[in-house]
C-alpha cells in the first residue's frame, strides 16, 4: 500500500526519532511511504491564528502536490495533521476559499485528498489482527513476546482530539485508537483520565512555569494509574513530557521516571526492529529499565 508521506518540520529535526521509527515500522508492515516531493510548511505556525487564507493555502499547496501522486496523505505529527485536515475542510466548505487559495498557490485544489494520521492507517488499513500476527512473527512456533504486559498510558493531547470535526478518534473524550494498536502488540494500556489533557505546548517557551505544572499533573496521573511509560503521537507532547520531566522531578524532589515513547517506537520494538533503527537513544528519560524486560 502506497501513501503520500508528509513528514513536516518536526520529524525532520527535533522529532527525528518519530521519523525513523515511523519509517521502520512502515517498512516492517509493508506500508510504502513516498515523500511528497517539494513539500513545504503545513502552516502550523502563527499563520492559522492570523490569516485564514494563508493557513488554508499552506495546507493546500502540499495537498495539491499529493493529489498528483494519486494516493492518501499520511501524517505523523499531530500539528501537521490538524493543519492539513483543517485546510481541506476550509476549502471543501467554501467555494470562495477554494478560489482564493487557487489564486494564492497558482492552481486549483478541491479539498478532496484524504489526510490520514498514521494511527488510522494502522488500524483501518493494516488491521489489528495483522499487527498481532506481525508481532508474533512469520514463523509458526517462534512467537515473539511483543510487549506482553507493558503498562502504557496512551496520551493524545489536544491536536488529535479537537475540534470534533477533525478528530481522528471515535470518542474524543475517551479515545481508544492508540490503546487498541498497542494492545495488539501484547501491551496493556492503562485506563486513565488525562489522555486528552493539555500539556501546555503553546506556552512551551513563554510560560515554562505553567507548562511545568501541567506536565507535572499529567505525569503524576500516569504514574498513579500504574503506567510504566507513556506513548504519544505528537512531537510537542513528547518534548514537553520528556524534556520537562527532569524539571518536574527537581521541583518535587522525587523521581518520576516515565519514559515517553512515540507509539511508533513501541510498535517497532514489538515488531523486533533494532532500537538503533527506532531512535530510542534520543529519549531523555531513560527507557532501559522499562524495555529490559523485553530483550
Amino acid at each position, binding site marked *: 500500500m502506497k501513501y503520500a508521506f508528509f513528514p513536516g518540520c518536526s520529524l525532520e529535526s527535533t522529532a527525528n526519532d518519530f521519523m525513523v521509527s515511523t519509517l521502520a515500522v512502515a517498512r516492517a508492515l509493508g506500508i510504502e511511504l513516498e515523500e511528497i516531493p517539494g513539500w513545504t510548511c503545513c502552516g502550523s505556525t502563527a499563520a492559522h491564528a492570523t490569516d485564514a487564507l494563508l493557513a488554508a493555502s499552506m495546507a493546500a499547496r502540499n495537498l495539491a502536490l499529493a493529489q498528483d501522486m494519486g494516493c492518501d496523505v499520511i501524517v505523523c505529527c499531530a500539528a501537521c495533521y490538524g493543519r492539513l485536515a483543517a485546510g481541506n475542510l476550509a476549502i471543501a466548505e467554501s467555494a470562495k476559499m477554494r478560489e482564493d487559495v487557487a489564486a494564492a498557490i497558482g492552481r486549483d485544489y478541491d479539498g478532496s485528498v484524504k489526510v490520514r494520521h498514521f494511527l488510522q492507517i494502522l488500524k483501518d488499513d493494516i488491521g489489528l489482527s495483522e499487527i498481532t*500476527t506481525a508481532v508474533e512473527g512469520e*514463523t509458526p*512456533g517462534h*512467537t515473539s513476546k511483543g510487549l506482553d504486559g507493558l503498562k502504557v498510558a496512551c496520551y493524545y493531547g489536544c491536536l488529535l482530539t479537537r475540534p470534533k470535526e477533525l478528530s481522528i478518534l471515535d470518542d474524543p473524550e475517551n479515545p481508544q485508537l492508540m490503546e487498541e494498536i498497542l494492545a495488539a502488540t501484547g501491551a496493556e494500556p492503562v485506563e486513565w*483520565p*488525562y489522555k486528552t489533557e493539555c500539556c501546555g505546548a503553546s506556552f512551551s517557551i513563554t510560560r515554562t512555569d505553567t507548562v511545568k505544572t501541567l506536565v507535572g499533573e499529567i505525569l503524576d496521573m500516569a504514574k*498513579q494509574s500504574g503506567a510504566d511509560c507513556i506513548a504519544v503521537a505528537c512531537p510537542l507532547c513528547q518534548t514537553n513530557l520528556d524534556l520537562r520531566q527532569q524539571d518536574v522531578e527537581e521541583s518535587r524532589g522525587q523521581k518520576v521516571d516515565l519514559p515517553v515513547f512515540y507509539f511508533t517506537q513501541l510498535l517497532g520494538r514489538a515488531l523486533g526492529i533494532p532500537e538503533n533503527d527506532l531512535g530510542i537513544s534520543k529519549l531523555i528519560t531513560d527507557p532501559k529499565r522499562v524495555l529490559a524486560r523485553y530483550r
Partner: protein
Amino acid sequence: MSISGEELRITDSSLEGGPVGAVMVCGGGVAGIQAALDLANSGFKVYLVEKSATIGGKMAQLDKTFPTGDCATCIISPKLVECTRNLNIEIITQAEVEQFEGEPGHFRAKIREKARFVDIDKCTACGDCEKVCPVKVPDNFNRGLNNTTAIHKVCAQAVPNAYVIEKRERPPCVSACPIGQNAQAYVALIAAGKFDEAAEIIRRDNPLPLICGYVCHRPCEDECQQSRYGDPVSIRELKKFALDNTQGKDTKNEDRPLRPERIAIIGAGPAGLAAADWLAKHGYPVTIFEALPVTGGMMRAGIPDFRLPREVLDRQVANIIDQGIELKTNSPIGPGLTIADLKAQGYKAVFASVGAQKGSKLGAEGEDLPGVVSGIDFIRDVNLGKGAQIGEKVVVIGAGNAAMDVARTAKRLGAKDVTIVYRRTKREMPADRVEVEEAAHEGVKFVLLTNPKRFVPKGGKLVGVECLKMKLSDERDASGRRKPVPVKGSEHIIECDTAIVAIGQTPDLSFAAGLDLATNKWGLVEVDPITLATSVPGVFAGGDVVAGAGTLSEAVGAGIRAAESIDRFINGEDMSEGRRPDDHVWTEDQHHELERFQRSRNLKKSRKVTAEKGDYSPDEAMAEAARCLACGICCECMECVKVCQPKAINHEMKDTVREIDVGAVILAPGFEEFDATGRGEFGFGRYPNVVTNVQFERMLSASGPYAGHLLRPSDGQEVKKLAFIQCVGSRDIANNRPHCSSVCCMAAIKESVVAMDHTEGLDTTIFYTDIRAFGKDFDRYYERAQAQGVKFQRSMISRVVEVPESRMLRLSYVRDGKPVEEEFDLVVLSTGMRTSEEALHTARVVGVNLNECGFCSSGELATVQSSREGIFVAGAFQEPKDIPDTVTQASAAAAKAMQLLAPSRGTMVVEKLYPTEHDYTDAQPRIGVFICHCGINIASVVDVERVVEAAREMYGVVYAENVVYACADNTQDRIKEIIREHNLNRLLVASCTPRTHEALFRDTARECGLNPFLVEMANIRDQCSWVHSENPEAATEKAIDLVRMSVARAAQLSALATEELPVNQAALVIGGGPSGISAALALADMGFRTSLVEKEEALGGRMPKGPMRDRLVRRASNHPLIDVYLSSKATKLNGHVGNFSSIVETPTGKKTVTHGAMIIAIGGTEYKPREYLYGLNQRVLTQRELENKLIDGNLPLDIGTTIAMIQCVGSRNSERPFCSRSCCAHAVKNAIRIKEAQPDANVVILYRDMRTYGASELLYQKARQLGVLFVRYTPEEPPVVTGGDRMKLTFVEPELQRTLELNVDYLALSTGTAPAVDNQQVSELAKIPLNEDGFFLEAHLKLRPVDFASEGIFLCGSTHSPKSTAENIQQGLAAAGRAATILSKKTMIVGGQVSCVDIRKCVSCLTCVRVCPYGAPAVNYANGKNRVEIEAAKCMGCGSCAAECPAKAIQLQHFTDHQVAAAIEALLAEVC
C-alpha cells in the same frame, strides 16, 4: 380478566355516521393512563398502546415523589391496576402504530404487537421461569445497574402482571454452525452450572457431539462477538466439557413412528452417519454401505488418533448404529453394485456421502516418483494400520489441517526432520492456528513463501524438492488473499527422501456408475444448495463429495439437511419450502446492529479462561461460559418451558398486526432521558461512579438493585459525598438540546433530600445554573432542602476526573471567587428529556409535526392540540414537564377528545351484567376455602395439603381444596362450580394479596350470585411463604393461623348493599377567566348544561387582551348550553357529588342552580408593588403595563433608551414564599419585543434565577443573542432605584461582588401572582381546603392535580397556583375532563364499604366531622336528634371516623369491630 360474550351488554347501538366512540392513547405512562381512565370512565372505549411490556412509564422507575415524599410506585400502582380492571380499556403492550389514516372522528390505525412469547392470559407471574433462566442480561428497568434474566417481569408491579421474553435474532455463533448447534444455549447453561441440560441441548441437534468437541473447526468462535473485545468464548472446549461432565445418556428415540421406506446411505463418514441418525430417529429403516472395513470415514481415516481418541469415535458411531441401522462394511457402491441396483432392491432414496478420498495432485514434475505420496493416502494407511513408509527427511506440501496432521504423524512415525513448505505466509494458512502452533511445538519446521517446482530424483529415488521463493503481490485471488508470485531465479532444492502432498482431496465418483450425475469442473457432485438433491431424482449427496475437502461439522450439517430432504421427498412434499440455503455468515447490517446493541452494554475487554491442567474444571468452565455476551438475549434453551406449569410460554409466538377504528388519538409516548455519553467529559459509561438521575432513582428505591442502600457501583462502599451536575442534555445547544427539561432541578433536590435520609451525614452538593423551582410549593421545598444542608453551588461543571485507585470523582469549580477541587464518591448527572425513537416513529406514522427541540408541536395557547386535527398530545412529548402538569395535560387532552366525539359517547363501551344476588342474611355460614400453591411460590415452603386439612376442621367450612393457581382461568371456573355445587355462601382464597387479586375473586363470586363482600382473602404468600422460606414448618403453622383468622372473619361477613342514585348531568363553573371559560366551553361542547358564574361585569379575567380572549368570551357567551351569570356570586352549596344545589346571587336576585359537578376557577390577583418607586414615578411600570404599552406602541424607544427589569417583585419573599412561574418568560418576551422594535435600545434584566422552563428557554437564548443583558442579584442585596426621569439603578453583581450603577429610562417590575381574595369565601362555601399560601389544596399534589378530596368538585387555573395563560386554559380543560367522568353517567353507585353511625350512641362531638378528609359526616338537624350522619355518596371507606369516634358510634362496613375481633379471637383461641 376474560369475559364471555353473553354476559356483555353494549349500552347503545353505534350511531350511524357519527364519529367512532373510541380513542387510541399512545403511551402507557402516567399521562396515557390518566387520559385512558378519564375517557373510559366517561363512556369511551380506549386502546392503550404501549411500546414496552408494562404500562407505568417513567414514573414507575422513580423512588419517591416530592414534595410529599410519597413512594412513586405506591401511588401509581393503583392506577395501573385500575386500568387493567376497566373493561373499556384495552391495553396493548409491546406495540407500535404501523399505519395510520383517516380524518377526525374516523381514523384507522394498524398496530403491530410484538411477540411476547408468554401468554398473558395464562401467565400467573409466579416467577418459576425466571429462576431457571440461565441468561443474564442488563436490567434496563434499573438502567443496567444489575442483571435480569432473558425471561423477566419488567418490574415487580408490572401491568399486565405477566412475564416477557426478550429476544434478538439468532446469535452469530449459532448462525455460523453448519449443524445449527445452539451454542448460546449450552454455553449459558454451563455458566449456570447446568451441565446435564447443556449436554442435552448439544446432543439434541448433533449426532456426533463429542467428536465435534474434539475436532470441530469452530466457526462459532470465529463469529463470537466477545472476540471484538478480547478472546472469543472457548465454545468447543465448553462443549467437550459439558459432554464429559454429564450424567445423562445419549438420547434415543424409542417410540418413533415406523416407516416402511428403506433408505440407502453410501459411506459411513460424518455426513452418512448424521443422515442415518436423523432418518433412524424418524422411523426409516436405513442401510449404510461402506467401502472400507471400518466406519467413521475421514474421522477415522483422515484424523490422527492423537487428535481424536479412537474410543470416542467408536462410542459415538456405535450410538448411531445401535439404533437399528444396518451396516454393510467392505461394500463399495460402484460398477459391482450400482445405485440402480439399490433402487431395484427397494431403497426409496439414496444419500451419497462417499467423501473425497483421492489426494489432489500438485501437477509438478516428478510427482510419480517413489517417495512422493499423497497426504490422504499416507494418513489413511497410518490410521488404518496398514503401515506407511516414511523416510528421515520429510517435506510436507500444503498448510491446511490435513498438512498439519500429516506432518505431526510423520514426526511421530520417527521422521527426524519434517518441513512444511507453503507458498504464502503464516497469516494465509488455512489450518487452525492452534494446529499450526502444535505442529511447530512438536518440531515441525516451516518454510514459507516457497513453492515446489519439481521433485528431484537421483537414481530413481527422491532426493529433494526444487522450490521457488515467492512474494505476495497486491493482487488478490478469488479467496481475497494476496496472490503469491514467484521471485525470478530463486530456484533452490530442499533435500528430502519423502515428500507428502497434502493440498486437498477430490472425490472418487465411481459410486455413480451407470448414473447420469451432474458434476462441476472440480469433479464435485452438483446439488441443489437447499435440498442437496442431485440431478438424479431420489439421489442426494452431501459432505466432501459435494464440498471438496470440507470440515467435519459441515459434513454433519449436510447429512442432517439431506435426511430432511429425503423425508420430504418420500412424503411427496416440497423439498425447499421454508428452508434457506446453508448460509452461515451474517450480513454487515446484522453485525452492525448487533455491535450497536453490545456497545450499549458498556462491555469490558475480557481474556479467556484457560484450564489449569488439560480439561476445564467445573469452576473454570462456568467462568469461561459466563463471558458469553448473550447476543440473542433469550437462548431458547427451553428451561422455562419445562417449569412453567400453566403452560404459558410459547417460543414460537409471532408478532400480531391488527387494525382498530378510533375517533381520536392522544399521543402520550413520554420521553427518554438524554444519553449521557453525549457529554463524554462527564465520563458516564467510563467511570462506574458516574450515574444518571434515572439510575440514582433506582439506587434509592427499596425495590431497586441496591435495595435502597446508597452504594458506589465500583466497590459497593457507602456513598459519603454526593454531587449532582444539572442540565446534562438540557439547555445544551451543542448537543441540539436547547430546551430546559423543567423537572431536573426539583428532581435533584428531592433526590438529595431522600439520599440524606438514607445515609446519615451525607454531604450533597448540587451544581446548577439556575434553580428552577417554579411549581406549586417548589420554592418552599428548595428552601427546606437548603436548611437541611443540601449545598447549592452555582457552577457549570466542565468535566469529571476519576482519580485512579480510589475511584473518587474530582470536580473543579469556582467558589467564592477561588478555584476549588473537590472529590466525590458518586456523581449524578441530571439528564434532560428528549423524544424517544419510538415516539419519533409514532409521530411520523400518525403525521404530526415536531418543533425545533424534537417535541410535538402544539398550539401556543392550545397546548394539547397537535398539528393534525383529531390528534391530541399530552405529557413530556409535548414539552418537558413534571408529573402534575403531565396528569393535568392528560385530562385536558381527554377532554378535547370527548368534545370531538361527544355524539358517540357510550357507543362502544361494554358493561358487565351479573345474576341476581342470593340473600344469605340469616343463613349459617357455608365457607369454601381455596388454598393456592402459586406454582411453587407458596407450595415449596408451606405444606399446602396440611393447611387444607386444617381448614376442613374449621367452623363454618364446608369445602376446602388446594389449587395450583387460584387466579388461573380454569380455576375460576372450578371455583364457580364448587360454589354452586356446595351452595357456598362465603368464599375464602388463601393466596397472595388482595391489592392485585381481590377484584378478580369478587367478580367470580358475583358471577355465582354471591355478594362481593362475602369474599375474603388470606395472604399466605407475601406475608408467609416469601418471608419464611427458610422455615417451612413454622410457615405452614402460620399459614394455618392466617387461614383460621380469615375463616373466622369470613363467617362474620355480611352482604353489603349498594344504591344507585341519579346524576344531575349539569355543571357549575365559578370564575370566568381563561381557565373557567375553557372548562365551561369544554363541558358544554360535550353536551352538559353548564352555569358559568363570574363576579365581574365581563368574562375574560386576567387573560391578555387580543383575539384569543375575544374569541373565548364570545363563544362562552353565545353557547346554547352555557348560562352565564355576570356580576354574580355563588353563596351557598348543598348536596354531594352527582346532586349539588347552589344559590347564585345575581344582580336580578338569588337563583338556585342544581348540578352534578362543580369547578372552581376563580383565578389569582396581580401583586401591586409598593417597592422600587412604583406609583411614585410614572416610568416605573409593572411587566403587564409595559406589555400593554409595547402592544399599543406607547413606549418611545430610541437609540440608547435603557429599560431595566427587576424580577421576583413580590414573589419568593417571606410574605409570598412562592415563585409566580410565568414572570421570567414574560420579561424575556417583552425584552425581545423591545429589541426587535429598537435593536439599539438597552435592556437589562435583574434576576435571581431565570426560570424559563421548557421551550421558553429558547426565548431566553434568543434574548441573549439580541443583546439583552442578564444580571443576577441576591435577595439580601436587592437593587435600589432613585431619581426622576432618568433613574439610577444601583445593584450588586454577586459573582464580581461589585456595586454597579445604571441610568435607566424605564423600569419594569415583574410582579407576582397572589391568591384571589375570594379564595377564603369559596373555601368555606364548598368546605374545601386552602394551603398555607392561600391557594386551593388539591386532592393529591402529584396524581390528582385538579380534583379535591371531596368528590365532584374540581379546580383549575391560578386558583390552584400561579401559571401562564396557556397553562390556565389547559387546566380548565383538565377540570372539564375530570368532571365529565361524573357527568357522563346517568346514575352512580354509592354505599358498600362505607361508615355508618349508630345515632343511639352518637353524642355529636364532631370528632368525625373534623377527621374526615372528604366532608362525609355532618350533623343532620332533620333527624330529630341533631346527630351526625354520614353521606354514603361522599364516604370513601377509609375508616378514619370509625377509628376516632370516642363513643364507638361509627362502624366501617366490611371492617366492623366484630369482624376484626373474630379474626383476632381465632388467632388467640389456642393461646388463651
